[in-house]
């Protein structure tokens, strides 16, 4: 049945006015509009006809092989993107961005050398163009991009997060801003505010350095009295203060790009701190080693020695053996470093004869020997023991008694500090490898002999010790089985 044209126009207008009220938000279905004509229904049971159409359009215009893009070999889809549509949404814009790379608008990102990062910014720009001023579908797009940031190596760049803030609908009358301290409680669109809060928690997780730009953008968007600006202020306040507890801070993206030898270097710098440490990398005779290591492991030996340890080695008695203690584990951020320690057993310390200085004369010795004053060389009076006879008129102050309580001050730490030195000897050097055979350590000794000539005279013994970190049981060794019939008796219940 065809309605007359006037009725059709009236009905269309009527439905357009009601459209915001009639948004089908049943379960998690939301209407997303792109380019006016195409309407995609985002729900669990979809036919994906429209997405397939988009993918066909993108594959028809494939890129040439001469492009410099490395992002072609992107990692497979994250497991966090459970919905296939989220992944396909991303890929749609990624493929579009690959076409546009190399255009005139890329002058904005000339300082960005990593092609993956350029792709990221391009992708967001394209979405902004397509979405328009209303930014329909901004929440879904922001959530998918937040999950997929690791693919673009953009985690520690704060500009990537501020770019996502541009994806929110900008303007004065969006109903998003909360500028009044009282009326903020009666405003809507809490989902946008909470999304921004999630964004800022991501910044804190990934260790990106917050900016004034972050603060200004959040206040312009969300207002002063919203949870996002609260989070932005708190991250600006706490970031610097928490990072100061760490001596060697490093961003997440830099840590990911470290090679195993760099990880060993940073680990050794942490284990053996000192600005003057001597770091060296020695080769290993692989024919003598009993193991074959995998690709990601360290084949050579990296050693560190501070000048204080070098002097201690030079003083070492060659009759006493030097020990290399067995492999032990240490953590550097999330990765582990296997290290060996070169040290000796402690000995009874001899008194320092070198500290005795040749003294010519002291005040006490002079008065005892010559029986005259140290300064004036005058003889003392008979009875009083003073230099001048009329000194008896002056007031006397007996400084022998301690009026100040300096002698009564107690110090506990100095009594306890050096107890461990009697049990543990000094450390001479530390090295890092992934080999477990002693043949690998011979390369270390050969290399150290060049700088420490006394090592050639000493005998070095490999002392293998069971370390807890390498052989730790994952379950409690004293745990009792609940299904054991003797459980109750052993536990003491009757």
């Amino acid at each position, binding site marked *: 049945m065809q309605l007359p044209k006037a009725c059709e126009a009236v009905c269309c207008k009527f439905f357009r006015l009601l459209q915001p009220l009639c948004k089908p938000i049943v379960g998690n279905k939301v209407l997303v509009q792109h380019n006016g004509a195409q309407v995609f229904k985002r729900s669990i049971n979809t036919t994906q006809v429209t997405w397939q159409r988009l993918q066909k359009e993108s594959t028809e215009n494939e890129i040439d092989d001469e492009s410099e893009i490395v992002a072609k070999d992107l990692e497979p889809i994250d497991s966090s993107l459970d919905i296939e549509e989220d992944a396909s949404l991303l890929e749609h814009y990624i493929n579009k961005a690959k076409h546009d790379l190399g255009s005139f608008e890329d002058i904005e990102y000339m300082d960005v050398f990593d092609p993956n990062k350029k792709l990221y910014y391009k992708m967001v720009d394209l979405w902004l163009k397509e979405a328009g001023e209303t930014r329909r579908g901004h929440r879904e797009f922001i959530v998918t991009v937040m999950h997929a940031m690791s693919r673009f190596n953009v985690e520690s760049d704060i500009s990537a997060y501020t770019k996502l803030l541009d994806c929110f609908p900008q303007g004065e009358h969006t109903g998003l801003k909360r500028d009044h301290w009282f009326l903020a409680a009666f405003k809507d669109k809490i989902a946008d505010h909470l999304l921004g809060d999630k964004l800022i928690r991501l910044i804190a997780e990934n260790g990106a350095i917050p900016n004034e730009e972050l603060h200004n953008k959040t206040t312009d968007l969300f207002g002063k009295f919203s949870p996002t600006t609260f989070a932005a202020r708190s991250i600006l306040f706490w970031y610097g203060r928490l990072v100061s507890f760490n*001596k060697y801070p490093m961003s997440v993206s830099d840590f990911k790009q470290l090679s195993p030898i760099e990880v060993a270097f940073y680990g050794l710098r942490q*284990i053996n701190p000192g600005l003057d440490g001597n770091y060296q990398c020695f080769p290993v005779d692989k024919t003598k080693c009993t193991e074959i290591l995998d690709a990601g492991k360290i084949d050579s030996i990296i050693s560190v020695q501070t000048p204080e340890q070098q002097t201690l080695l030079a003083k070492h008695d060659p009759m006493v053996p030097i020990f290399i203690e067995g492999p032990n584990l240490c953590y550097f951020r999330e990765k582990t470093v296997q290290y060996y320690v070169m040290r000796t057993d402690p000995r009874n310390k001899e008194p320092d004869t070198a500290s005795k200085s040749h003294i010519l004369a002291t005040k006490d010795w002079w008065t005892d020997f010559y029986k005259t004053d140290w300064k004036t060389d005058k003889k003392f009076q008979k009875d009083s023991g003073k230099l001048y006879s009329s000194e008896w008129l002056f007031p006397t102050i007996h400084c022998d008694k301690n009026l100040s309580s300096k002698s*009564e001050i107690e110090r506990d730490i100095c009594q306890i500090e050096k107890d461990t030195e009697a049990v543990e000897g000094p*450390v001479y050097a530390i090295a890092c490898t992934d080999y477990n055979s002693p043949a690998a350590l011979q390369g270390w000794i050969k290399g150290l002999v060049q700088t420490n000539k006394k090592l050639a005279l000493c005998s070095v013994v490999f002392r293998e010790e*069971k370390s*807890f970190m390498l052989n730790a049981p994952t379950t409690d060794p004293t745990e009792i089985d609940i299904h054991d019939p003797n459980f109750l*008796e052993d536990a003491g*219940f009757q």
Partner: protein
Amino acid sequence: MANPLVWVLHSAGRRFPSLTAARRISTGLRLMQNDEGDESGITVKKETPHKPPQRLAIHWPKFRQSWKHIQFDIKNRFSPMKKQQHLKRLTKEDHVVYYFRNPDDLRYWYLMTDEDIGGYSWSELRQSKNEMTALFRGYLSNRRPRDRLLSEDPLAERPRFSGFAFMETKPFITVLDKVEFMSFIGFNVIKLRIRGDGRKYMLEAHCDLGLGYNLMYTAPVHTNGGPLWQEVKIPYCKLIASKKSGLLSKQSPMDLHKMTNFRFLLNDGIEGPFQLEIDYIAFERDYNFPFEDNDYYDPWLPINSNSGG
């Protein structure tokens, strides 16, 4: 030479599963057999049976202990100022609070892990081989407990579960179960001598302000790892007030008269073994740091508070 018997403290989680939601404190010190040839004394095969406490009508040991504390308290009040212990600290430069030269010193601590919630990490506290320091070690696992299921809704959040483990001091009980506060008075800085494994441990001090108002003052300790000892200095002004391991926006200064517990917490979310060796915990006075207030003045406090006034 390895000792045949070793004093060990274990975190008791699933060993004594209880139906109530009470907090399970670790078992007391136990003598356990040390494996032969295993000088580090890692695995332990048999343990002595646990004797539950006697249930008396009147708990006479409690009265005996409280009478001792009353006698000590009276002596302390009516003695000259030099001998009064809480004032003696003002003449001291350093004061060692905990050190582990005897195996009996471990009885002041207790352990807890996420086993209480249903997690799968374990820990133990024992004296180390050199018989001078304490070893807090175990395994931290991020495996989800069975109680905390993930929803099948693909749009719902999937937060990651991270295990935890900590060692905490037992409260001092004086007269008829009265909890007495530790005195941080007169000093400025907490000094530690530790040997860790490269992980981030949190040093925490618990403040009980009465009527259920409890705060934990935390500070992160990044350990170096390796064979060398590490001396860490944490001034009181750098301790951050937090509740349930979340930093508070409104920072208040520490009430030194109401500090109850010390704690070493591991919460960095890395799955694997951990080991922390502690030589001593001491207080010190350093005039480079302030004695009152903390370093966390927030200029946005009037805006961040609820009314914004």
